[in-house]
């Protein structure tokens, strides 16, 4: 028995339900579909929905909570010397059990763990069978009820459409659920982190070295978790990126909307679109293998000490990545300025550049500010370029020639490779993630508000 098998049998049952009720509806109407309230297939759809939905409900409860429940049972059943409630080594024990299950090679020697692994396996199989039985019986009950109601005057179509509408609504709520999931999981893990490290230290501490907190059972003696150097590094690289992308993106947008010929636009727009479509990992590769060494060599020629993972290289390449973002959003903002304003200025004898600088840009300013804020949020959250081209040293510096690290780099560094879910080191990644989410979300909300307000002015 596997999850896939349960899912497939549910589908099969639904198909059977469709065929049965469709036939039953026809028979109940004496073979004359015109006597039915709805088309025969609507009765079938309704029955299928009655089978699938309760069945899936049972199935998804198993999918989401099944393993956690089993783990709880296993932990509770373990002898005290292996696991005690209150002592925070649950994840470690569970990991050993999991390894014992997965590993064909017997590394695990502890008989308690081996027994637990055996029990886990038994429970898991039992759970699967129980889920199978439960979801199929739910489905059968649904089929029975639906078949009972299959009468000529039953409004099958309306009922089915009702169900469909609810399904549509649930789909749209899922987007909100994603946000709630993000907020929930980040908050939950962060709170666990802040039980061990004070919020004040995290937000204002100047020293970051999570690597000392290696032993999961000694989290209290954790290393330093002052995130200020990370925030500063993120800010520095974003600043460099924006000082590349801001002017170039804006000027390109101005040129393309105000000066360029149709032919020029036809060439330049795809160029920017391709630039926007290149995956960030490609930019990261370019930054790490081409730009950063080039800067370092240039530094040697100029007698400057440029780190091989300088903030400048990562920032510059990130800036290139953001150019199309800035330019397309600025483009929208500039084209939204009514032509009458431009005409008014030109008719007074202003040159095109005077018109752009003194009339068009001030009028488009909110839109451009919004574009820049969205671009900053993009830069702050960008991961691959900095992971590949920026350093790991949490240094508090404003010198772009030195290596700095960012929030996203640390998240990746903390969560790739072997990890314990409970250690402060791992949890700190979620705290960083929360900081990242909150700051980018704030930027986005403000930016979208500005842009929306601005659109209303000229609509």
């Amino acid at each position, binding site marked *: 028995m596997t999850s896939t098998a349960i899912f497939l049998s549910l589908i099969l049952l639904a198909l059977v339900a469709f065929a049965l009720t469709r036939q039953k509806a026809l028979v109940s109407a004496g073979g004359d579909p015109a006597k039915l309230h709805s088309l025969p297939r609507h009765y079938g759809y309704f029955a299928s929905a009655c089978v699938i939905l309760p069945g899936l409900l049972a199935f998804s409860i198993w999918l989401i909570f099944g393993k956690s429940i089993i783990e709880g049972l296993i932990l509770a059943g373990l002898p005290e010397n292996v696991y005690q409630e209150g002592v925070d080594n649950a994840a470690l024990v569970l990991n050993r059990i999991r390894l014992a299950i997965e590993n064909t090679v017997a590394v695990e020697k502890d008989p308690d763990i081996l027994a637990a692994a055996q029990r886990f396996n038994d429970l898991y199989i039992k759970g699967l069978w129980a889920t199978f039985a439960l979801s199929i019986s739910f489905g059968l009950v649904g089929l029975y009820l639906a078949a009972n109601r299959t009468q000529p005057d039953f409004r099958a179509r309306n009922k089915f459409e009702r169900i469909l509408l609810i399904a549509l609504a649930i789909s749209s709520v899922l987007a*909100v659920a994603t946000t709630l*999931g993000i907020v929930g999981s980040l908050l939950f893990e962060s709170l666990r982190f802040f039980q061990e490290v004070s919020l004040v230290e995290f937000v204002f501490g100047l020293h970051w070295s999570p690597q000392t907190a290696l032993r999961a059972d000694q989290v209290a003696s954790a290393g330093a978790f002052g995130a200020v150097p990370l925030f500063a590094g993120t800010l520095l690289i974003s600043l460099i990126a924006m000082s590349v992308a801001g002017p170039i993106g804006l000027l390109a947008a101005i040129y393309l909307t105000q000066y360029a010929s149709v032919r020029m636009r036809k060439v330049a727009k795809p160029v920017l679109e391709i630039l926007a*479509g290149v*995956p960030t990992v490609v930019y990261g*590769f*370019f930054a790490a293998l081409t730009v950063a060494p080039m800067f370092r060599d240039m530094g040697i020629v100029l007698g400057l000490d440029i780190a091989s993972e300088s903030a400048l290289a990562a920032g510059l390449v990130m800036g290139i990545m953001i150019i199309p973002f800035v330019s397309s959003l600025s483009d929208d903002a500039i084209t939204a300025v009514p032509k009458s304003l431009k005409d008014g200025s030109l008719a007074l004898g202003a040159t095109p550049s*005077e018109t752009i600088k003194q009339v068009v840009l001030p009028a488009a300013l909110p839109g451009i500010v919004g574009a820049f804020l969205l671009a900053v949020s993009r830069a702050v*959250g960008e991961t691959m370029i900095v992971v590949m081209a920026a350093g790991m040293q949490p240094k508090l510096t404003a010198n772009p020639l030195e290596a700095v690290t960012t929030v996203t780099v640390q998240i990746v560094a903390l969560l790739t490779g072997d990890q314990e879910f409970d250690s402060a080191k791992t949890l700190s990644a979620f705290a960083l993630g929360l900081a*990242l989410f909150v700051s980018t979300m704030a930027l*986005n909300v403000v930016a979208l508000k500005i842009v929306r307000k601005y659109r209303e002015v000229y609509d």
Partner: protein
Amino acid sequence: MSKETTEFKPTDWQSPEMKARIKRRYRKEKSFRVMGFTAVIIAALFLVTLLGKISSDGIYGFFQTSIDLDVPFSEAVIGNPRDMDADAFEQQVMRTNMLRLINDALVKEFPEVKSRRDRRELIRMVSSGARAQLRDMLLADPSIVGTTQRVRLLASDDIDQVRKGKINPEEAEANRKVKDRELAWYNKLVEEDRISLNFHTAFLTHGDSRDPEMAGIWGATVGSALTLVVTLAIAFPIGVLAAIYLEEFAPKNRLTDLIEVNINNLAAVPSIVFGLLGLAVFLGVMHLPRSAPLVGGLTLALMTLPTIIIASRASIKAVPPSIRDAARGLGASPMQVVFHHVVPLAMPGILTGTIIGMAQALGETAPLLMIGMVAFIVDIPGGVTDAATALPVQIFLWADSPERAFVEKTSAAIMVLLFFLIMMNGLAIWLRQKFERQW
């Protein structure tokens, strides 16, 4: 200055000051225009540099150097296939150390090399993948045992780099990986016309490897494909249904406003945050298998959902109300209006948005790092729950490798990834143009 004089004195446009001023203004105009043009050119130059650098490196990644050696498939080493049945022979071949065959071939080619240490160095010129090559040859045709065959064996990555001119023989010996003696051997092989550079299909058909000359992207490609299938299976139906609901059925109230704002903001959340969500929920709570395309696909689905919803809504909104009125006038229920008329008409736009979303998902790396699709995996994944990696992650992993030869492999992998992205975006553009409708 009295009012009367300002009113009636026309501006003296011909005065030298005014002329100079106008000249100055036109200079500013011109320089501003040039600045704008320069910005566009800079952006274009960046793109050309990026693509140029990657394709000039990457093109080498598709080719690999081989050494033609006369390999004596001696019975003494392998055993005689005529003495045993097929199964026994196969086992015998699997047991045999093919290095001995290669060693014999090299001894014949370089009789002057005597010491064990030098021999070891000599054998390092041939890729470790050559062993599998010989094994496959024997299994395919046992009759070659006892003969000497000229075999085109894969060269090691260092020899490959020499052949491709990436290692400069002029450089001081201490600074290069390939030493003078190896270069001498290499030159001898070149003189005998035994070195050749060939198109390397294994790059497209093999999984990952620690040796650059053996590494391929097929495993990562399959991983990406499986991941995208999961993403599409989740994000497309939910995204379209959500868009239909919001556009056609949702009452205009605070809740739907909230959903709308939420979707717009979700589209701008950094991708790594989705990775954290996947880690905490799919791995932490639901205990789905780590490193699996299933989890990667689910995570990317949540990330692509806003893109699909936004594109689908725009497309549904573009269907004119007259069509809905016409269908309603014939007695269709609201659901029938939507599913029989509006959605089919909006489908090209919805598909375009979906493909663009999928292309984004294909290029995404950071969330996959979070859920562990970053392991070194040699096997080609066979299903959505097998451990796998994805193309962008493979690029990330190779970019991190110290071997110089991985640079061109990384670039080649990028070329493949970009090829897929261009195909997907091309398909989206084609769809848009083919079905573009002016209402």
